């Protein structure tokens, strides 16, 4: 049974878990292995060991990071869903595999029973999440609403005909950055239906294998619909193995088995020196996990910063031989790759053919060209035959090019005098049924590689120094945490804040929903930052000028009431400019003193309490999820619940109504939503196109809204109306234009990669954290700040950086300054130097894509390692053989 594909197909007893597995190595399935010994006898590398045993190793470490990950909830125990009983009921993990090109059906959307394309698919949300009746998981898994929407979108894309997709949910929780836009696209453009209901029974229709889904709609009416397939959106759970690990290490977990953490120390565990990240910390998606991983690395490294780099062995490289002006002397090494290549391609014939090619002075073939002893042999042959170009005909440069390049470097040959012919992945593996054709194609590929090798030039990676100082822009919670953590890593930091005091928006907050005191935290944080000997704080400070590149920035700062100018040199930048609360125009805000924002309500509760309040109504999504601001502000639902709980605590008799669209108390916040309902807070859903109506009368404010359960309008007379005003990005237009930083249409800065580089900005050496990136909670801003400090540390920890040699160069003599390259570069790298009157391409910031080289009408721009001649010669060599 194939476990990765959730048992939807079988696999052999010797297998690679999946195509992207690390390490990409074969394993033996002990349940399926007969012990016949065939693989052991066949393996040329002698890599199969049946008697291999578990070995114990002792490691000494200064810090530990726990990231044991998550397991999808197993719905087998929920009999009403029919998982395991009805073949066409699959989990979301199983459906993910069905959609995958590497999955059981090679990416064709089919249902398991009869391998027919489904006509309709239902997704059932919150299976194993937000459920204490059927399972013990009281939390929201945070990711299922987005992945269900995604799966529905991809299923629609794969099935070209009509496919009805329905997502049955209690609340759609698409709260992350840009997630609401995705949800709207799914609903409004792709026609995916989102049904507000929790399904209570699924039954199979025996003749067709279709599934009858029974549910109660919002008005309480029982409905039934038939679907071809049902996908259970299973939640994230912590596996027993992780719980046992925590026990062994004496780490406290909460009742839902996640690591117990403090909102102000999100990745720290109950034990000093042990940190955590990912879903073990709490349910979260990929960007959150990647961010926390960097945060944990930051804290783990801070305590060990003195020892940084002490265990690294440096490699001494011999001086490079000068090959300029030499005639190419090419050595060709053809690999058998065990039997992967040699079993199909006639390797001796290919080697013999290579001998006949121009400039080839040496050929060889190896069983495994990548093995350590072959590297030594290659080095010997380079010296013995005075080779100045090397071609290896084997596998993919993606996996093996860097290793062979190192071999060249180790014997004094420039690493760019190397070329690979991929005669395995692009040849023997795919033409295994036609060995003669594969041999001919291998010859073609070797001929092309040899032709290119002859044109290669040595390239040198320029080494530039890195200024060891950081600039942090913004002195709120995120900026201060970033500065403090960089200081702890031992780097000098200049922290600039535009206001006269540190603290930012958090100065307006009192408590977190967990009850932690924000003011006390800020006071302590400011004290730590201002007293840290590595941190210099500049208040009333703004960026006035900017230049330079990664590792070597120069920023001009205007500081103090006198606007004194000061130039700062620094190696990295952390942007933490924050956000603010939306100022509502809706619902009589500013006209009636009884209408306040949640921030103002929290102030009021702090000052006067709630004893004089009979009724409080709250309206969610004010200034969010509407025409003007499509995005969700993420924090307002928990903010409303927090204030509602505070009111109930101070005066249990106060009636509290929360009018909402989807309650987005994600992750562990769900427990507070449950608590609020238990304490009598009344939650009433309204539709975006039928919002509550508010009018002021002498004895209070009247809020009119439709009650979905009663199916009629109700009126609530209230003392206070609290608006959950969303977040807005701080105004950073000037800063963005000076520093060339990109923001999205909402004004939040854009990260380099949404999932994989969530705190890096597109420009190298520039990092991002806090609400400048998008709305988020304090705990999330703190882990993001620690992550940004961590990413900045990886940069600052090196005294110098090597630039990629694959960069564009302009031949200024032939350039006619048409500026096409200036207009075409996606990263604004080529500039016209108005003094020297030439186009300049700074290799320090060039990304090496070759767009400018492609557009240059006079071919005066060449991309290193991919010069026009180095590509054209391959075309010529290929076609010289006739096709």
């Amino acid at each position, binding site marked *: 049974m194939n476990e990765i594909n959730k048992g939807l197909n079988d696999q052999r007893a010797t297998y690679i878990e999946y195509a992207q597995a690390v390490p990409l190595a074969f394993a033996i399935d002990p349940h399926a292995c007969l012990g016949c010994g065939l693989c052991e006898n066949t393996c040329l590398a002698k890599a199969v060991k049946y008697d291999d045993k578990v070995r114990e190793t002792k490691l000494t470490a200064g810090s530990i990071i726990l990231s044991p990950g998550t397991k999808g909830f197993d719905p087998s125990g929920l009999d009403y869903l029919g998982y395991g009983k009805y073949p066409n009921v699959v989990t979301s993990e199983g459906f993910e595999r069905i959609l995958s*090109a590497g999955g059981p059906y090679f990416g064709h959307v089919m249902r398991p029973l009869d391998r027919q394309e489904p006509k309709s698919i239902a997704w059932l949300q919150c299976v194993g999440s937000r459920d204490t009746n059927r399972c013990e998981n009281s939390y929201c898994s945070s990711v299922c609403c987005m992945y269900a929407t995604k799966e529905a979108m991809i299923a629609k894309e794969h099935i070209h005909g009509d496919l009805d997709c329905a997502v049955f949910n209690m609340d759609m929780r698409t709260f992350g950055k840009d997630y609401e836009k995705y949800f709207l696209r799914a609903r409004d453009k792709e026609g995916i239906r989102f049904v507000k209901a929790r399904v209570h029974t699924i039954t199979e229709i025996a003749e067709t294998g279709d599934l009858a889904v029974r549910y109660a709609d919002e008005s309480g009416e029982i409905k039934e619909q038939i679907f071809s397939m049902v996908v259970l959106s299973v939640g994230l759970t912590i596996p027993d193995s992780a719980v046992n690990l925590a026990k062994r290490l004496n780490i406290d977990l909460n009742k839902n088995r996640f690591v117990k953490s403090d909102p102000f120390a999100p990745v720290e565990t109950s034990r000093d020196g042990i940190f955590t990240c990912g879903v073990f910390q709490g349910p979260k998606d990929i960007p959150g996990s990647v961010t926390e991983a960097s945060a944990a690395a930051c804290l783990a490294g801070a305590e060990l910063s003195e020892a940084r780099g002490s265990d690294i062995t440096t490699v001494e490289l011999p001086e490079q031989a000068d090959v300029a002006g030499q005639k190419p002397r090419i050595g060709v090494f053809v690999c058998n790759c065990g039997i992967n290549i040699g079993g199909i391609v006639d390797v001796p014939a290919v080697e013999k053919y290579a001998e006949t090619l121009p400039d080839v002075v040496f050929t060889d073939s190896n069983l495994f060209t990548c093995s350590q002893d072959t590297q030594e042999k290659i080095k010997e042959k380079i010296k013995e035959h005075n080779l100045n170009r090397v071609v290896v005909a084997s596998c993919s440069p993606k996996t093996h090019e860097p290793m062979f390049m190192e071999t060249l470097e180790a014997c004094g040959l420039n690493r760019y005098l190397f070329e690979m012919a991929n005669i395995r992945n692009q040849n023997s593996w795919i033409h295994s049924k036609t060995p003669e*054709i594969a041999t001919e194609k291998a010859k073609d590929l070797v001929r092309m590689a040899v032709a290119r090798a002859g044109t290669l030039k040595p390239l040198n990676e320029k080494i530039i120094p890195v200024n060891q100082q950081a600039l942090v822009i913004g002195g709120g919670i995120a900026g201060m945490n970033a500065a403090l953590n960089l200081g702890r890593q031992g780097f000098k930091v200049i922290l600039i804040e535009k206001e006269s005091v540190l603290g930012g928006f958090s100065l307006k907050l009192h408590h977190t929903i967990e009850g932690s005191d924000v003011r006390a935290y800020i006071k302590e944080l400011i004290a730590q930052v201002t007293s840290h000997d590595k941190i210099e704080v500049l208040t009333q400070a703004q960026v006035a000028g900017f230049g330079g590149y990664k590792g070597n920035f120069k920023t001009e700062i205007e500081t103090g009431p006198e606007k004194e100018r000061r130039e700062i040199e620094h190696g990295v930048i952390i942007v933490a400019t924050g956000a603010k609360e939306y100022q509502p125009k809706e619902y009589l805000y500013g006209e009636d003193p009884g209408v306040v924002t949640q921030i103002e309500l929290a102030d009021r509760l702090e000052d006067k309490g709630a004893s004089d309040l009979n009724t409080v109504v709250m309206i969610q999504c004010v200034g969010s999820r509407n025409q003007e601001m499509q995005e969700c502000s993420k924090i307002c639902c928990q903010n409303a619940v927090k204030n509602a709980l505070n009111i109930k605590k101070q005066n249990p008799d106060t009636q509290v109504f929360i009018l909402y669209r989807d309650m987005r108390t994600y992750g562990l916040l769900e427990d507070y939503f449950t608590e609020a309902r238990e304490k009598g807070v009344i939650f009433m859903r309204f539709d975006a196109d039928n919002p509550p109506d508010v009018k002021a009368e002498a004895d209070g404010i009247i809020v009119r809204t439709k009650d979905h359960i009663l199916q009629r309008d109700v009126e609530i007379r209230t003392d206070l109306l609290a608006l959950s005003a969303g977040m807005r990005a701080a105004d950073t237009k000037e800063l963005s234009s000076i520093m060339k930083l990109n923001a999205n249409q909402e004004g939040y800065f854009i990260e380099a990669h949404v999932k994989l580089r969530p705190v890096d900005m597109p420009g190298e050496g520039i990092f991002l954290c806090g609400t400048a990136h998008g709305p988020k909670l304090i705990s999330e801003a703190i882990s993001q700040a620690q992550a940004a400090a961590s990413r900045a540390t990886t940069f600052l920890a090196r005294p110098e950086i090597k630039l990629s040699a694959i960069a564009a160069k302009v031949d200024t003599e032939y350039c006619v300054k048409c500026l096409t390259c200036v207009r075409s570069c996606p990263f604004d790298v080529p500039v016209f130097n108005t003094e020297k009157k030439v186009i300049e391409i700074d290799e320090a910031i060039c990304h090496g894509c*070759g767009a400018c080289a492609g557009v240059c009408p006079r071919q005066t721009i060449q991309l290193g390692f991919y010069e026009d001649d180095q590509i054209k010669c391959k075309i010529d060599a*290929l076609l010289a053989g006739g*096709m």
Partner: protein
Amino acid sequence: MRLEYPANVKIIRVPCTGKVDVMYLLRAIQKGADGVYCVGCLEGTCHYNEGNFRCKERVNHVRMLLEEVGIQGDRVRMYNLSSGEGPTFAAYAREMVEHIKEIGPNPLNNSAKV
């Protein structure tokens, strides 16, 4: 994945399809290739923002140029896929080879074999 596709296809590596010059495509046809195609990232997901759109424009331009000199423009094509789509890659390779076999050898190809 070791998916089969015709051996007529040989791959030339570029950092981004945005690097593919009109000259490369024309040269391949001039030197006798029966077909040339560029495989770039899915539209909107170019690692360098817009390289695949540049390539698409150039492919269209070359198709037009070829038609003008009486060679079928459809010998040059652009395909898009993500790096995780091995089966699609193989399917496109088969589709291209089938298509080229249908339109026959390149009239500029002296050796004239497909």
